[in-house]
C-alpha cells in the first residue's frame, strides 16, 4: 500500500459503446495486472476507482476486440469497441438457427453490418458484390433501381440460377429483394456448399443467401440518422465519329461498293451532334435519408426505421429515376420465462421510371450510339422546321416549340432520344412490398426450443402512363394516343415449425433440429386497361373518366398459378470438445411443380471438421495458431421451373376469323408434348476447405468444391417440324462447376492507427458434361441482330461459350489471298479482296462455312476478386474497396451492324485502307461480301477483365466532447467516391454486364460515377 500512497490515484468514469455509438452494457474492465475491475451498466457507463496514471485499462466484451487504454489523466473516457472480425467465437446464421463459427463445418461467407456502414448502396446485391468469395454479382444495368445478376458458385443449371433469398426466415424472390433498406441489414450469410444448403433442400441448388435484419438491444433508446447527397455522371463516354468523320466514312463505304459519294461537302458538316451529350446527365442527383430508433428492456426490444432514397439516372434523368420509401419494425417480447414472441416487418414503396437498356433494338442508349451525328437534336432552322416532314406529322417539340430533329440517315428502331423522352415522360411503374413474420418460441426446459413462425409476403405493383400521338420517324409512329394502367398483386406465405434441443455432456456437445414447413407463393392476379384515342393531347388532361366507345378500350386480366412446397427437415450437430465436428442434414421436399411419380425428393448432406490446432500435438506457435479442416458432401435440388411441365395441356388463343363481318373464333390446340417422367434436378456438391489464423494477424479461409448438376430441367428445344406451339420440359443436361475460393483478412493496430484488410479471390470452371443422347449442343440463348446465335451450350465447353468464326489477320494484298490455300491447293477465300478478314478454316475443308466456327471464350468470369482496406486513426477513417473479374470475354455489340448508316466508334478510323494499314480492323463496305462485320467472329469479342475502385471513402468522427454538447453520442461526416476508376481494356461503357447470359453488350446502361457526402449521427 505504501506504493499507492506515493502514486496519485484516480476514479475514472467513462462510457463504452460499439462503433455505431450503441452503448454496450456488461463490458468487463480490469486494470491490467490487478484484480481491480468493473462492468458497464445498462447505458454503457462505468466507474472504476484506484487507477494510477500510466495504468492500462483492459476492456473486453464477447464478440468485440479487446482494447487497452492507458490512463493519462482523470478525464472521463469514451471507449469504442470494434466488433472482433477475427473472432472464431463469432456466430453465423446457418438456416433455422445460428452456430458458433468455430464449429461450422460448411462453406459459409458472411458480411456484417459494420462492413456496409456508411456505404451508399441502394440494393442488397450491391452490398454483397466483391465482399465474399464464390459469388459473382453483375449489375443488370446502371439504371437506378436495377437488379443484379447473382451467381453462387457458378452456373448451376441452364434455367433460373438465382439464389434463394431468405430474409429473417421468409423466402423472398430475387425480383422483390430490392425492398430491403441496406442499413437495416445486420448480417448477410451466403451458404455455398451442399452441407450448408441441404437444409433448404429442393430450392437450394443455386445457393442460399440469408439476410438478418437488425434487432433492438437492451439498453437506452438509440436514435440514428444517416443521410447522403451526391451527384452522378457517366464514368465513360464512347468516342464516336463526329459529323465530318461520319460523312467521310459513309462516303468511303458507298464508294467501295461502286456507289456514289453521299456527302459532297464534308468539312461544312463540322462536329455535328454528339448524341451522348444529349442523353447523359453529368449532374444526376442522388440522396438518401434514414432514421432509426431502437432499444429495449428485459421484456421487449425493438428496432424501427424509416428510409427514403432518391436517385436520378445518368441517362435521360427525367425518364430514368428511382424513389424508394421503406419502413421497418422488428420486435421481440418475453411473455414469460418460457415464452418469447417476436415479429419482423418490412415495407417498401418504390416508384421508378426506366428506359430500355442493353437492347440493340431501340432505347435511347442504342439510339445515341447509332444515330448519325449530322442530324441536329433540335431543329432551329425555320426552313427545315417548316418542311412538310415537320409540319404534317405529329412531331415532338421542345419547350420553345422547336421540333426535335428527325434523322434521314438512320431509321429502323432508332429515333431522336429527346423526342422519345417526350412520348413517355411521366410514365412510371410502382410497387408496394410488405414482408414480415411472427414467431413464438417456447423453451420448456433448458436446451429445448419449440419455434413456430408464420411468414407472409405481399406485393402490389403496376404501371401508369399516357402515350400521345407521335411521329418520331417514318417507321416509329403512333397514330392514336392512349392511357394505360395496370395493377397486379401477389401473395405468399409459409409456416415453419421447428423443435431443437441442444445439450452438452462433458466434452460432448450436440444439438438436434427437427422441422417441418409448408410454403405457398404465386397467389397472384392482375388487370390492365388501355383507353385509346382520348380527346386530349397531354398527359395532364388524360383521364379514364373520359367516355370512349367500347372498341377504344382494351383490357386484360390474369391469374397466377400457385406454387406449393411441403417439407420435413432435420439436422444433427455434434462436436467433441469443439475439436471433432460433425453435421448431418436431411430434408424431404414435395413440390407442386412435379408430377405424381416424382413429387417428393430427398436431399441429404453430411460434413465434418477437425480443429487440428486443438490437438495436444499441435505446438503453440505464431505461424499457424488456429487451424480447422473441414469437408462435406450433399445433394440439393431446384424447382424453379415452369408450372405443369409434366402435363400435356391444350391452350387457347389460336384464333381465326370466319364470315363477312370478321367474327373471331377462339381456337384451341395442344401447347407442347407432355413429359410425365419429369424428375428433380439434382445438384451434388463436394467441398473441402480449411480455416486458419496465420502469423497472428491473418485469418485465412480456403475452399475447394466440385458441384455436379444432373438432369437439368429445361425447355427441350424441339424441331419446328413437330409443329408444337411450345416446348416441353425435360431433364436434359448435366453440368459441372468446380472452383477454388480464398478469403483472407488482416487486422493490426499500431497505437491509435488501426488497419484492416479483407480480400477474396475465387476461381471457377464450368463445364457442360451432357446434353442428352445424340444432342451435341443447345443454341438460342443469345442471338445478335442478323448474326444469329453467338453462344452455344455444348458438351465439354463452359455454358454459353461464344461460338463463331476465327480471324487470322487481314489480307494485305492479292498475293496473300491467292496464297491462302488448303492442303489440296485450292484458294480458301477466292472472293476475298485485300482488306478482308482471313478466316481460319478450322475444319480444313478448303472453304469457309458455318462448320468453321469454333469456341472463342466464355462470358463467365474465371476469376472474381474483391479487396477492402480500412484504416482509421483517431477520428479519421478511410476505406478503399475494389472488386473485379478476369478471364471472361465481352461481346461488344454496340453498333447496329445491319444499319449501314449507323454511326461508328472512332476505332473505325484505324480501319484497313491499304496494305499495311491494319491487321485487325477490316476495310469498310456497305455490302460486306466477306462478312467482315456480318459474321460473328472474335473481332467482336474483347477481354472483360477489370478492376474497379468501387468505393473510396474518407470519414471523420467528431470528438465525443463536441458531439455531446448537441446531445449526440456520435457524429460522423464522410465523403465518398463511387466507381472512381475502372481499369479495363474493354471499349464499351462498362465491363460489368449482367443478364441471363452475361457479357453481351447491346448498349448497356453504364454504372454511374458518383461523388457523395454524408452524415451519420447517433443520439
Amino acid at each position, binding site marked *: 500500500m505504501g506504493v499507492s500512497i506515493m502514486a496519485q490515484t484516480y476514479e475514472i468514469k467513462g462510457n463504452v459503446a460499439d462503433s455505431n455509438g450503441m452503448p454496450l452494457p456488461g463490458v468487463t474492465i480490469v486494470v491490467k495486472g490487478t484484480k481491480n475491475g468493473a462492468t458497464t451498466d445498462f447505458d454503457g457507463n462505468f466507474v472504476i476507482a484506484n487507477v494510477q496514471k500510466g495504468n492500462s485499462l483492459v476492456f473486453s466484451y464477447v464478440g468485440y476486440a479487446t482494447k487497452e487504454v492507458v490512463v493519462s489523466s482523470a478525464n472521463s473516457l469514451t471507449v469504442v469497441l470494434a466488433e472482433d472480425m477475427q473472432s472464431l467465437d463469432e456466430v453465423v446464421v446457418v438456416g433455422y438457427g445460428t452456430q458458433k463459427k468455430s464449429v461450422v463445418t460448411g462453406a459459409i461467407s458472411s458480411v456484417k453490418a459494420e462492413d456496409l456502414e456508411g456505404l451508399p448502396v441502394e440494393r442488397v446485391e450491391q452490398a454483397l458484390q466483391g465482399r465474399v468469395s464464390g459469388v459473382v454479382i453483375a449489375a443488370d444495368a446502371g439504371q437506378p433501381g436495377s437488379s443484379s445478376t447473382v451467381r453462387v458458385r457458378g452456373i448451376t443449371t441452364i434455367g433460373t440460377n438465382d439464389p434463394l433469398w431468405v430474409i429473417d426466415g421468409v423466402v423472398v424472390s430475387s425480383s422483390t429483394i430490392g425492398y430491403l433498406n441496406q442499413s437495416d441489414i445486420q448480417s448477410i450469410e451466403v451458404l455455398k456448399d451442399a452441407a450448408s444448403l441441404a437444409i433448404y433442400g429442393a430450392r437450394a441448388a443455386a445457393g442460399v443467401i440469408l439476410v438478418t435484419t437488425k434487432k433492438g438491444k437492451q439498453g437506452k433508446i438509440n436514435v440514428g440518422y444517416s443521410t447522403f447527397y451526391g451527384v452522378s455522371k457517366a464514368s465513360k463516354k464512347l468516342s464516336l465519329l463526329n459529323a465530318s468523320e461520319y460523312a467521310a466514312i459513309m462516303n468511303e463505304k458507298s464508294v467501295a461498293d461502286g456507289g456514289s459519294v453521299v456527302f459532297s461537302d464534308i468539312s461544312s458538316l463540322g462536329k455535328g451532334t454528339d448524341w451522348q451529350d444529349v442523353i447523359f446527365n453529368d449532374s444526376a442527383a442522388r440522396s438518401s435519408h434514414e432514421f432509426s430508433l431502437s432499444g429495449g428492456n428485459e421484456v421487449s426490444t425493438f428496432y424501427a426505421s424509416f428510409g427514403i432514397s432518391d436517385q436520378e439516372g445518368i441517362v435521360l434523368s427525367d425518364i430514368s429515376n428511382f424513389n424508394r420509401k421503406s419502413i421497418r419494425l422488428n420486435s421481440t417480447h418475453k*411473455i414469460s420465462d418460457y415464452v418469447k414472441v417476436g415479429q419482423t416487418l418490412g415495407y417498401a414503396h418504390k416508384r421508378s421510371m426506366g428506359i430500355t437498356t442493353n437492347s440493340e433494338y431501340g432505347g435511347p442508349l442504342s439510339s445515341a450510339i447509332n444515330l448519325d451525328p449530322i442530324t441536329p437534336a433540335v431543329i432551329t432552322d425555320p426552313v427545315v422546321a417548316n418542311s412538310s*416532314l415537320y409540319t404534317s406529322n405529329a412531331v415532338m417539340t421542345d419547350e420553345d416549340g422547336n421540333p426535335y430533329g428527325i434523322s434521314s440517315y438512320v431509321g*429502323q428502331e432508332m429515333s431522336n432520344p429527346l423526342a422519345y423522352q417526350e412520348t413517355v415522360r411521366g410514365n412510371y411503374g410502382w410497387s408496394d412490398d410488405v414482408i414480415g413474420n411472427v414467431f413464438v418460441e417456447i423453451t420448456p426446459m433448458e436446451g429445448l426450443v419449440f419455434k413456430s413462425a408464420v411468414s407472409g409476403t405481399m406485393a402490389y405493383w403496376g404501371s401508369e402512363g399516357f402515350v400521345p400521338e407521335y411521329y418520331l420517324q417514318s417507321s416509329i409512329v403512333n397514330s392514336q394516343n392512349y392511357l394505360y394502367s395496370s395493377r397486379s398483386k401477389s401473395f405468399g406465405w409459409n409456416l415453419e415449425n421447428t423443435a431443437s434441443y441442444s445439450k452438452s455432456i462433458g466434452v460432448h456437445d450436440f444439438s438436434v433440429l427437427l422441422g417441418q414447413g409448408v410454403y405457398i407463393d404465386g397467389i397472384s392476379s392482375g388487370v390492365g386497361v*388501355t383507353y385509346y384515342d382520348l380527346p386530349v393531347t397531354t398527359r395532364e388532361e388524360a383521364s379514364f373518366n373520359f367516355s370512349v366507345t367500347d372498341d377504344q378500350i382494351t383490357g386484360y386480366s390474369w391469374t397466377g398459378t400457385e406454387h406449393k412446397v411441403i417439407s420435413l427437415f432435420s439436422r444433427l450437430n455434434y462436436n467433441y470438445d469443439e475439436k471433432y465436428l460433425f453435421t448431418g442434414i436431411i430434408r424431404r421436399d414435395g413440390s407442386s411443380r412435379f408430377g405424381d411419380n416424382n413429387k417428393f425428393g430427398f436431399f441429404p448432406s453430411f460434413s465434418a471438421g477437425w480443429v487440428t490446432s486443438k490437438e495436444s500435438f499441435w505446438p503453440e506457435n505464431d505461424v499457424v495458431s488456429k487451424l480447422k479442416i473441414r469437408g462435406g458432401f450433399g445433394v440439393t435440388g431446384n424447382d424453379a421451373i415452369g408450372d405443369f411441365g409434366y402435363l400435356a395441356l*391444350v391452350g387457347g*388463343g389460336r384464333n*381465326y376469323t370466319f*364470315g363477312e363481318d*370478321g367474327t*373471331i373464333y377462339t381456337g384451341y390446340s395442344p401447347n407442347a408434348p407432355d413429359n410425365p417422367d419429369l424428375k428433380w434436378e439434382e445438384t451434388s456438391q463436394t467441398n473441402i476447405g480449411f480455416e486458419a489464423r496465420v502469423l497472428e494477424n491473418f485469418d485465412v479461409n480456403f475452399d475447394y468444391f466440385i458441384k455436379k448438376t444432373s438432369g437439368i430441367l429445361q425447355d427441350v428445344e424441339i424441331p419446328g417440324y413437330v409443329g408444337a406451339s411450345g416446348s416441353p420440359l425435360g431433364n436434359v443436361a448435366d453440368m459441372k462447376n468446380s472452383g477454388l475460393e480464398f478469403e483472407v483478412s488482416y487486422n493490426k493496430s499500431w497505437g491509435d492507427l488501426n488497419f484492416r484488410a479483407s480480400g477474396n479471390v475465387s476461381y471457377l470452371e464450368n463445364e457442360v458434361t451432357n446434353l442428352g443422347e445424340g444432342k451435341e449442343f443447345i443454341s438460342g440463348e443469345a442471338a445478335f441482330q442478323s448474326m444469329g446465335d453467338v453462344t452455344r451450350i455444348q458438351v465439354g465447353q463452359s455454358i454459353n461459350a461464344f461460338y463463331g468464326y476465327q480471324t487470322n489477320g487481314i489480307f494485305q494484298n492479292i498475293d496473300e489471298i491467292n496464297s491462302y490455300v488448303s492442303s489440296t491447293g485450292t484458294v480458301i477465300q477466292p472472293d476475298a479482296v485485300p482488306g478482308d478478314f482471313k478466316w481460319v478454316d478450322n475444319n480444313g475443308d478448303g472453304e469457309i462455312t458455318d462448320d468453321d466456327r469454333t469456341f472463342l471464350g466464355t462470358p463467365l468470369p474465371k476469376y472474381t476478386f474483391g479487396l477492402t482496406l480500412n484504416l482509421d486513426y483517431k477520428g479519421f477513417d478511410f476505406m478503399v474497396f475494389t472488386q473485379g473479374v478476369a478471364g471472361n470475354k465481352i461481346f461488344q455489340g454496340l453498333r447496329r451492324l445491319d444499319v449501314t448508316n449507323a454511326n461508328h466508334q472512332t476505332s473505325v478510323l484505324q480501319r484497313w485502307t491499304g496494305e499495311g494499314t491494319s491487321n485487325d480492323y477490316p476495310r469498310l463496305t456497305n455490302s460486306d461480301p466477306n462478312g467482315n462485320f456480318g459474321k460473328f467472329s472474335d473481332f467482336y469479342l474483347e477481354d472483360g477483365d477489370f478492376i474497379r475502385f468501387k468505393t473510396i471513402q474518407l470519414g471523420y468522427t467528431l470528438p465525443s466532447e463536441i458531439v455531446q454538447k448537441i446531445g449526440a453520442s456520435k457524429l460522423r461526416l464522410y465523403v465518398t467516391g463511387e466507381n472512381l476508376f475502372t481499369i479495363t481494356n474493354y471499349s464499351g461503357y462498362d465491363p460489368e454486364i449482367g443478364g441471363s447470359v452475361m457479357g453481351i453488350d447491346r448498349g448497356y446502361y453504364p454504372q454511374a460515377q458518383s461523388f457523395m457526402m454524408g452524415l451519420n449521427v447517433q443520439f
Partner: protein
Amino acid sequence: MKLKKYKLPVLAVAMLATIFSCSEDYLEVTPTGTFLTGNYYTNETEAFAGLVAAYDYLRKNSGTFENMITMMNAGSDDHYAGGGTSTDGAGIQSFSKYTLNSIEIPDSFWSDHFKGVYRANIMIQKLPDISMDESLKARYMAESKALRAYYYFNLVRLFENVPLLTEPVSTADMYNVVQASSEEVYAQIELDLLDAIDVLPSTVVSSEYGRITKGAAQAILGKVYLEQGKNTEAAAQFAEVNGTPGSTSQYGYKLLDNFDDLWDIDNKYNSESIFEVGHSDLALTGWSNSYSDTDEGNLVCTMVGPRGFVDLNTTDDIPEYSSGWSFNPILPELYNLLKDDPRFEATVLDLKTLSEEGKISYTPGYQDTGYFLNKFAPLTSEESTGAGDMWLNHRQNSYIIRLADTYLLEAEALGGTGTRAQALLDAVRARVGLASIPVSLTNILAERRLELAGEGQRWFDLRRNGTLATKLADRGFVAGKHEIFPIPYGELENTKLVQNPNY
C-alpha cells in the same frame, strides 16, 4: 400468462397435424385457363375450337411480318424487297437478292406451316373419338385434311425436302424424323384433297365464309397437279371449278364485273373468291401480341404502304394513303407493262408521278421506285379506328385462289391451246375490257403477270415454267440452288434432316 404457455404449444401441434393430414393433396395445383389434353376433344364445341386452331395458320398468306405474299413478291422479277433499309427484314432482303442462307431464312416459313400441319393432324387423330353429329364430324375431318394438304403444298413448294408427318410425332421419335421425297409428299396431298373433296360442301352460309369448300379443295388440287406437270388431271379439276368461262360456275363462282371491286376491303368473299384468308380489325391487336396467334390483321397492307405519305393539296381527289413500310416496290418493267392496262389504277400507286407533279410527298424507302402496290396499300379512311395499333389491324382479306387465277391455270393446263383455253383467257381479258388475243402459254403467263400482279403468284409461275433462272439472273439467282429455300439452320441441329442442295 400461465395459460398462454400451454396454449401455444397446443396450437403448434395442431398446426402440424393439419398439415400432415393433407400433405399429398396439398401439392395438387390445377391448371387454369387451359385444359388437360387427355380431357379435351370430347364434344362438338371442342372439336370446332380445334378446327379453328388448324385454320389459324392460313394467315401465313398475308398476316404477320413474315408472310407469303410480300416474301414471294420480293423474290420475283416484279418487285424488290424494299422496306426501310437494306436490312429491314433480313430474310426478305436476302431472298430478294438471292443471298438467302440457312441462318437468314425466316424459320416461320417452315415452322408455321408445320404448326398448321400439326393442328390438322391432331384433329384427324382426335375426331373419330369425339361424340358429335356424324355428318359435321365428316366435314371437320375433310376440312382438316384439306388444310393439311394446303400447308404441305406450301412446304413442299418452298422447301421440297420435308418430313411427311400424318400424325403428331411422339416425344420419343422427335429427333428420328427423316425427310420424305417430294413425290411422297405430293401423293399424300392428293390423297387428302381427294378425300376432302368427297365430303366438303359446295357452298357455305355467310357466317361460315372462309371455311374450305369443295371448290376450294378442287382448285388447290388443280394447282397441286399442275405443279407436278399432271396437266390433264389439273385441267379436269379446274374445269369443275371454272365451269363455262364468263358465266356462273356450278359452285356459284363468277368473275366480278369490275376488277377494282376485288380490292374493295369490304367486298369480302365475293363471287370470284375461291379460297380466301380472313382478316379482321376486331382483334384490336397491339404490339404486345403482334404476329402472334391472336393477331388477325393483314400486315401486307402495312408493309406495302408508302412511308410518310403527305397530301400536299387536299382539294384534289387524290385519296390520303395510310403510312406504311414501303415494301415490295414495283419495278419499272412491270410498271411499263401495266401503264396502259385497265388494271393499272387498281394495281399500281404511282407516287413518283404524283410527287413530281407536286401533289403529294412521301419518304422514299429502300429500293424506292415510286410505284407501290395499290391492291393492298391502305387509305387512312380504311385504317382501323379501334383500340390496338392501326398498323396491326388492317381488315382487308387476301385471296389464296380466285377465279381469274383458276381460269388462267386451266388454260395453262390445257397446254395453252384449244377453244376452251382461248375462252378462258378471253374471259379474264374481257372482264377488264381488253380484246381477245391468241391463246398461248406465253400469253397466258403474260396475262397472269398483269392480272395477279403483287399477289405472290409470279415467282411460282416462273418456277413452274422453268424461267426463274433467266428472269432473275441479274439478281444473283443460281440455277439448281435457288429454286427452293434452304432449310432453317435450327432444324438441322440435332436432327436427321439434310440441308437442301448447294446451301
